């Protein structure tokens, strides 16, 4: 699995890229792979506010539906409308053209609680 070094990660398999005062959020290579070919995306509305771990978006493949969660608290500043016509970009380029939304964090220090690439790679399933 591809895990870019310069991103932050959540245990619900979102990635976060800091871009000035904003963050860009998408789902990881692992996440897109579990869902198979995505066919539909439900995105939030610009201006909506979410708390950390709140459901923000839904991604669906032919046979699966999965929620996407806010990695931190903040306000939506942009959504990737290109995905509405081409949800498959999440599969082909999860860390690039497949980004989902941008947020303005309420408190940028919340970012420190996210995992770095090594921690994400080492995060093991919560099972025996």
């Amino acid at each position: 699995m591809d895990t870019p070094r310069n991103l932050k990660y959540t245990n619900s398999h979102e990635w976060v890229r800091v871009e000035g005062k904003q963050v860009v959020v998408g789902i990881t290579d692992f996440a897109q792979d579990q869902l198979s070919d995505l066919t539909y995306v439900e995105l939030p509305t610009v201006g909506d506010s979410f708390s950390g771990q709140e459901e923000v978006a839904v991604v669906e493949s032919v046979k699966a539906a999965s929620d996407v969660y806010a990695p931190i608290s903040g306000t939506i500043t942009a959504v990737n409308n290109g995905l509405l016509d081409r949800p498959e970009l999440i599969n082909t380029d999860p860390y690039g053209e497949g980004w989902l939304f941008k947020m303005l964090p309420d408190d940028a220090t919340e970012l420190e609680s996210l995992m770095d690439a090594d921690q994400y790679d080492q995060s093991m399933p919560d099972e025996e």
Partner: protein
Amino acid sequence: MAFALFFPDPLPYVEGLRLQEALHAARVADRIPDTVLFLQHCPVITLGRRGRSNHLLAREDQLRARGIDLFEASRGGDVTYHGPGQVVMYPIIRLGREGSGSHGYLHNLEEVAIGTCAAFGVEAWRREGKNGAWTAAGKIAAIGFKIQRWVTLHGMSFNVEAGLGGFELIVPCGLAGEPVASLRSLLGEATPSIVQVAGAMADRFEAVTGRVLERIPCRDPLPDVLAAALNPA
């Protein structure tokens, strides 16, 4: 360590849903280990999130008159039918980064269906662009699931007996002109029992997902950890 619960009698769809949701909440909170339900449903037609009502060939009142319920389910996928004679498998499992296989959860479910067919001498395969498991007589297993907090809900149904008449009232999975198969339509008198098929599915599930299932017939008392999750005081 994971549990497999086997229910001998058909469950109404809502009851199965309630059970799944209780187990899901408990699994998300780490109060229980991964748990897989094996059951049959009372006759019901369910529409997935993308299910189109034009894939439904009868009105709701006509369905009810035939004793078939109708539900809109939160799972992915299109319309399908469940009823006695079909084994439904609902894994409530955390999808971890280890042991999930390189092909993802959908592939694993398909693998369980194909392996279950093989266990009874039936050849089954995937079809490019069409999910599920296919045989010479048509589609034998249908898949639709949801992932919430990275714990799965819903899953797969596998047709054992023929005469699953509810399929005639829908365009299964939105695929027009595709026949629905069952082990009965392929094996005739050699068809295994529902219990045998559920057991074979559990075997394949263990092999494909690398989990060991402690098997519990649900007439027996549940293990404490599950009972507490299912019957919160």
